[in-house]
């Protein structure tokens, strides 16, 4: 595992128990466990189970370089997108330079827009808008809100070359008349800003800053590419025009209709533009260290703080020991592929390295993955040389052929025997004896269905087919493919199938029998009397007597009858074992408490107008009532006291719960299900619980 080993890390904060426990859980140190030499050997050995899968994954990784998987391509794209450089442009108005315009230009909208070609009228221009921002103040000291509009646009290179992003404009719109409403415009979200902008159609002043020209001036700044900020001032001509929202297919288009061009309808605004190159990737100061510079003692600390660093704990020796490594940039420790994010890493690990189990941990300090080798699906797929794994279970066996061979040919035996020896499936054992004894096998005669000549477009003609059969003979271990056109029904295999049905499909007695018939037959002695018109008491008496007698007398017969047939659980319809049939317990009215609790909680979760504490009390009560079988009104007082007793300790610990419980008791009292005295008793019980809780604290 080619990550950075973290074995040097010492547990320096030994005394600090609080953080220790978590750290301990995350990175259990090997040094904690004292091992004898023998155990160490065993531990080494258990670590070596990692070798094989890692080896396999290295091979797969080498193959995947040519054609990376879909997931890997997605993650690669994410990494590229993260690293892509962009320009952040901030636009603001500076009060001093726009003194003659004054406050009346607010609200001042700044938008990114692209002209739409289908402009018909001469004096109008249509734009498709996005990212509207509102300025409500000059960018001056002391005014913080809504003084800047920030956009992120692609970098200069892309702006000049990519056709999709050229022709971009920054449009500024001022609606001087709407000054009064600007106070309400505070803190608009993006889509709200757009809708509020589109709402107030009518007269306005607007101007544009083409991004192309912006680019020209930005290209001159050498410092931009070095990450410095570039400031510039630009004068924008504002023209008076009428705004019309234009709903083409989407509602983000707008039409400016320019009115008469005279000096009164235009004015200039000085706009301050700041440009800065940004990369979407967040760099932390720790990223600039290289590992050589730092002393080993602080290495783990730095390692932990880097965003892309992930701890890998490899568990081995029955999870007693672990080896810890760190990888950078969310890399996979097995194939060193970068995975863009912790989520991406988890997807990659689960999908590409399924011979391991992974547990993912994220805390403020760590991103860690606990790795262990999967044992549940582990079966050896190593096959000895010269053996085709595909014929380990399914192969042709010829009843007819083999019998002949075993009589007169030693060669035939040599064909059969290696086969028997190499097939590891215990499965085949059943037919082995027959193999060895006389070479016959109770299996299907080999039979190949060839192309039916009646098929006009079948791609085999007779000649090529025969060749094919010949070539195949060797492949299928001497079993011959007979070029018959037998219909399945008439073929010899039909006979075989019948032979088979005798011993292969042996099944338990599965004919469903209703248990009630049995009962009826054993108890018909008293059934008549039960249905008679005798008084109930008499009937019951006789019933009891009769049962006693019939039990004694009919017990062996009863048992025999019960043994004779299969019984089933009434709910799950699973066959009952004999001991279950004779057992006292019956599955008929079993209540599954776990599931009932789960369903109750789920039902309560559906309520939206109930607090968490109320749900908790409801759940506890429902569960209590079900388990204690509180059925009648008269049970309620007892249930309340018992409930207080049972959950008292929990209740007194959280006042919200106790409050809910008391409200519930009041509700019961309202319905006259609970008397004041019992309520008082419950309060006393809870008080006692509270006191018991307090006592250990004081002492």
């Amino acid at each position, binding site marked *: 595992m080619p990550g950075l080993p973290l074995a040097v890390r010492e547990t320096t904060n030994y005394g600090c128990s609080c953080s220790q426990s978590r750290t301990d859980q995350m990175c259990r140190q090997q040094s904690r466990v004292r091992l004898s030499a023998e155990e160490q050997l065993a531990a080494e050995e258990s670590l070596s189970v990692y070798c094989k899968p890692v080896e396999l994954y290295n091979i797969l990784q080498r193959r995947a370089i040519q054609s990376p998987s879909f997931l890997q391509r997605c993650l690669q794209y994410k990494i590229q997108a993260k690293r892509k450089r962009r320009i952040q442009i901030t636009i603001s108005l500076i009060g001093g330079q726009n003194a003659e315009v004054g406050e009346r230009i607010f609200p001042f909208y700044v938008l990114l827009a692209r002209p739409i070609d289908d402009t018909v009228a001469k004096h109008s221009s249509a734009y498709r808008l996005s990212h509207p921002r509102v300025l409500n103040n000059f960018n001056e000291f002391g005014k913080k809100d809504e003084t800047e509009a920030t956009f992120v646009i692609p970098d200069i290179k892309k702006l000049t070359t990519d056709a999709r992003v050229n022709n971009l404009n920054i449009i500024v719109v001022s609606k001087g008349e709407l000054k009064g409403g600007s106070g309400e415009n505070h803190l608009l979200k993006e889509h709200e800003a757009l809708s509020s902008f589109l709402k107030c159609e009518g007269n306005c002043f607007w101007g544009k800053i083409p991004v192309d020209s912006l680019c020209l001036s930005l290209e001159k700044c050498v410092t931009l590419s070095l990450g410095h900020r570039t400031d510039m001032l630009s004068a924008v001509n504002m023209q008076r025009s009428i705004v019309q929202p234009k709903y083409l297919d989407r509602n983000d288009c707008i039409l400016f209709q320019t009115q008469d061009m005279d000096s009164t309808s235009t004015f200039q605004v000085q706009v301050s533009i700041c440009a800065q190159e940004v990369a979407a990737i967040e760099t932390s100061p720790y990223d600039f260290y290289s590992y050589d510079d730092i002393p080993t003692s602080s290495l783990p600390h730095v390692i932990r703080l880097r965003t892309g660093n992930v701890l890998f704990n490899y568990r081995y020796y029955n999870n007693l020991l672990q080896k810890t490594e760190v990888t950078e940039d969310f890399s996979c420790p097995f194939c060193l592929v970068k995975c863009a994010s912790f989520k991406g890493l988890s997807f990659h690990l689960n999908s590409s390295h399924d011979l391991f189990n992974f547990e993912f941990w994220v805390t403020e300090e760590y991103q860690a993955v606990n790795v262990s080798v999967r044992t549940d699906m582990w079966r050896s797929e190593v096959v000895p040389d010269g053996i085709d*794994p595909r014929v380990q279970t*399914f192969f042709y066996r010829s009843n007819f052929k083999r019998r002949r061979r075993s009589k007169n040919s030693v060669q035939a035996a040599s064909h059969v025997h290696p086969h028997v020896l190499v097939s590891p499936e215990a499965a085949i054992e059943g037919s082995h004896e027959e193999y060895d004894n006389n070479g016959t096998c109770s299996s299907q005669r080999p039979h*190949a269905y060839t*192309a039916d000549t009646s098929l*006009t477009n*079948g791609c085999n003609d007779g000649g090529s087919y025969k060749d094919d059969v010949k070539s195949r003979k060797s492949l299928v271990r001497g079993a011959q493919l007979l070029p018959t056109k037998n219909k399945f029904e008439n073929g010899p295999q039909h006979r075989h199938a019948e032979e088979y049905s005798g011993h292969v499909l042996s099944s338990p007695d599965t004919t469903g029998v209703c248990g009630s018939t049995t009962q009826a037959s054993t108890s018909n002695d008293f059934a008549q009397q039960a249905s008679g018109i005798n008084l109930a008491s008499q009937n019951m008496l006789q019933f009891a007597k009769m049962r006693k007698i019939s039990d004694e007398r009919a017990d062996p017969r009863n048992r025999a009858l019960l043994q004779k047939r299969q019984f089933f659980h009434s709910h799950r*319809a699973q066959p009952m074992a004999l001991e279950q049939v004779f057992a006292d317990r019956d599955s008929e009215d079993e209540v599954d408490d776990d599931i009932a609790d789960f369903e109750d909680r789920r039902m309560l979760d559906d309520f939206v107008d109930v607090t968490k504490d109320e749900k908790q009390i409801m759940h506890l009560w429902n569960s209590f009532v079900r388990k204690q079988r509180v059925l009648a009104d008269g049970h309620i007082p007892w249930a309340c006291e018992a409930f207080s007793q049972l959950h008292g300790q929990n209740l007194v610990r959280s006042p919200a719960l106790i409050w809910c419980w008391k409200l519930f008791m009041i509700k019961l009292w309202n319905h006259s299900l609970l008397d004041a005295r019992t309520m008082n008793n419950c309060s006393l019980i809870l008080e006692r619980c509270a006191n018991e809780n307090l006592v250990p604290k004081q002492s």
Partner: protein
Amino acid sequence: MAKSGLGCEPAVGSLTASRKREYKVSNRVHEGKRPLYAIAFNFIDARYYDIFATVGGNRVTVYRCLEGGLIAVLQAYVDEEKDESFYTLSWACDIDGTPFLVAGGSNGIIRVINAGTEKIHKSFVGHGDSVNEIRTQALKPSLVVSASKDESVRLWNLHTGICILIFAGAGGHRNEVLSVDFHPSDIYRIASCGMDNTVRIWSMKEFWTYVEKSFTWTDLPSKFPTKYVQFPVFIASVHCNYVDCTRWLGDFVLSKSVDNEIVLWEPKTKEQSPGEGAVDILQKYPVPECDIWFIKFSCDFHYNSAAIGNREGKIFVWELQSSPPGLIARLSHAQCKSPIRQTAMSFDGSTILSCCEDGSIWRWDTVS
């Protein structure tokens, strides 16, 4: 329930075949007069990708697809019950990798056949009526799920023979369950559909301890605390008639009813309130003359394409993951006229098998 509106119309595939791949009939086998209801390649074990099995009547037959269009019979099993009519089968395997064949049908008894020993491994009793479909959990191939006419879906452990969970009850299906499928990556999730016109998505996350317990259970299988999962996480009304086949395509669902199309849709479940959610219908794959129920489609291993037969014996091969969907090929033969109940696509989609109601198996191979 399904969302509709501007920009939300599903992409419907065109019925003109792109002829990206051409298929030709390479073989035909008559197994008997009785209808064949299911045919399936073994995708569970890489050694046996060319092995397939069919069920029909009380018989299960195992074949191998050989090169040059040949089909070889390997094993045949006949159930002791004469009146059994198997409707479905699925390949599975034991913990040690022995291939299992799991078949179920009208009697409601699920037969697990060990193809290695050629003996019955176990028989699962529990369903109160016929079993309509069995599917294997590819992530744990000793788990199978069965859909039954008794309106329930059951999860079984082949290794220990335990019925682990029953998906039925208050939120369960209201009529026969016709089809069921495991989510390919979310091991807790299954989808089922049936004659109540709904597709239900179930989660066994809360019940997973029981699944784990079933592997280590040493007592009698019938003593296992089988649990009922009563409420699905999502009920989708995508179709307005019997839904007879459903498969997961990633997190999306492919399902078909009797209205001549397969529908691809996205279930949008809400985490907080199970049972609620919306359906976004993404794509439709038209299949003409496919208006009788119990016709199932099959996909290749990577779900790149799907093949489905119709009432007239034609097969439509759709490219699943392109948008709009593209018809790869339309397969028909003058002598194949009876309804195709089920198809089987080989691992890479180069071979398509179909089983017909007249008891014939047709093999189609790509022509290079």
